[in-house]
């Protein structure tokens, strides 16, 4: 492969040698130090071979001596390609110009992508980049990459972090927006009480404000439970109430009836393993499935040799077992219960649990519904007007 590449770079001609003994010419060439390769027979008295252009010139003087005729059938390699291009200078210049243009254009930014803008306008980030001297067409070398993100933050509003990376000719701006802290409400600010999650009202005791729901009613997240606007005089107050809701959490789990348990059968095989320079050879195993205990008996023979001899004890093992129905249901119930309770807040109290089972071809699906009693109320400021 490397030799072929070398010949292609140097250039070579494929010649056809005709005569009563064409190999004589090849032999004469070899004796005169002309390298010949790829000698093929094309029939009686005809050979083809590859020689360098210089070798071909030298070969012509040997023709008569060998009583052979030589003609070129093919010219290959870089020198002939370049010679061909010399006849078409515009093609050569076109190629050079295209390469130069590619080189020059690849050193500039041609696309700016902004990601992560949820509430912020991308145009604001693009404008900040423009103020920093970065637009489409800016040379990459002219961009002060370090600290560009921090300078952009100073020029924009509502952003917590900006990361700028350059991938080829693409400038990628990653934006993380600021998360405003929740509005703190003091005790005197007029507010409603709203539901934080979907629930059924279990109990409601209103201290101030007007109840909008009744016990047993199902509410949706954000729904007003107690209004802070008093109906008789239109006064706005801070609604206060103790509200408990019933919330249901669901967990689903599938357990297969087949399990893998590895048990030793009692059959044992002793074997020798040799490791040399990372490559290991060991006696073939008698068992399909086995686990191994290995003891190194010789490590490098006391020298700095990359060789280890180990003794292996192989224990045959057997796998697969089928779970009993009760165990299958217990495992499915536990897994689904765990999934359901993982969603429950710490201050909630579990009121009831119910599990239903679905038998499938290879196992059981358990669906556990956990009912809790918990605080579902949160204060929400009354909109102005």
């Amino acid at each position, binding site marked *: 492969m490397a030799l072929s590449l070398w010949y292609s770079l140097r250039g070579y001609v494929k010649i056809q040698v005709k005569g009563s003994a064409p*190999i004589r010419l090849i*032999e004469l060439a*070899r004796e005169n130090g002309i390298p010949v390769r*790829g*000698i093929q*027979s094309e029939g009686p008295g005809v050979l083809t071979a590859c020689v360098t252009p210089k070798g071909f010139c030298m070969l012509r003087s040997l023709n008569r001596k060998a009583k052979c005729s030589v003609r070129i059938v093919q010219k290959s390699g870089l020198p002939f390609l370049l010679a061909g291009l010399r006849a078409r200078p515009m093609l050569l210049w076109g190629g050079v110009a295209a390469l130069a243009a590619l080189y020059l254009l690849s050193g500039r930014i041609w696309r700016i992508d902004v990601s992560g803008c949820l509430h912020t306008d991308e145009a604001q980030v693009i404008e900040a980049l423009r103020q920093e001297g970065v637009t489409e067409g800016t040379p990459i070398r002219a961009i002060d990459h370090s600290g560009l993100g921090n300078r952009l933050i100073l020029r924009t509003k509502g952003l917590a972090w900006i990361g700028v990376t350059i991938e080829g000719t693409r400038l990628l701006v990653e934006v993380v927006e600021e998360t405003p802290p929740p509005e703190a409400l003091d005790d005197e600010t007029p507010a409603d009480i709203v539901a934080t999650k979907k629930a059924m009202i279990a109990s409601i005791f209103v201290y101030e404000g007007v109840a909008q729901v009744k016990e047993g009613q199902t509410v949706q997240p954000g729904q007003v439970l107690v209004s802070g606007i008093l109906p008789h005089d239109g006064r706005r107050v801070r609604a206060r109430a103790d509200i408990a809701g019933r919330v249901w959490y669901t967990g689903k789990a599938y357990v297969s009836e087949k399990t893998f348990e590895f048990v030793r059968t009692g059959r044992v095989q002793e074997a020798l393993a040799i490791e040399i320079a990372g490559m290991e050879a060991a006696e073939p195993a008698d068992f399909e499935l086995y686990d191994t205990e290995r003891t190194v008996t010789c490590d490098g023979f006391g020298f700095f040799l990359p060789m280890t001899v180990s003794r292996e004890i192989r224990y045959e093992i057997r796998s697969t077992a089928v779970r009993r129905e009760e165990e299958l249901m217990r495992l499915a119930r536990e897994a689904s219960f765990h999934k359901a309770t993982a969603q429950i807040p710490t201050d909630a109290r579990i009121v009831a649990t119910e599990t239903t089972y679905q038998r499938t071809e290879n196992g059981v699906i358990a669906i556990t519904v956990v009912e809790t009693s918990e605080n579902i109320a949160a204060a929400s400021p009354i909109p102005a007007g």
Partner: protein
Amino acid sequence: MKAARKSEKPIRRGLTEALDLPADVLLDEPTVSVEGKRRLTVDNHKGVEEFDGEKLTVKTSIGALRVSGSSLVLEDLGCGSLLLTGTIRSIEWM
């Protein structure tokens, strides 16, 4: 694969065998290497006597080496070594 006539150059041969030297260094004998059925190298040869697509005869210091096969190509023919590819059927010393 190496071949030699025992009767010639007894001192050199003895030295070569005693010092475990390659035969081509002191005895000027050819070295023939075959990789499978598709590649043959001859080092220290004395020239090609005959070649077509089905046979090659190479002169060496210990006699002629004939290789038969099909689709034979002399990939490289340099000073003292040659590389033959193709399907090699037989190799014989003459």
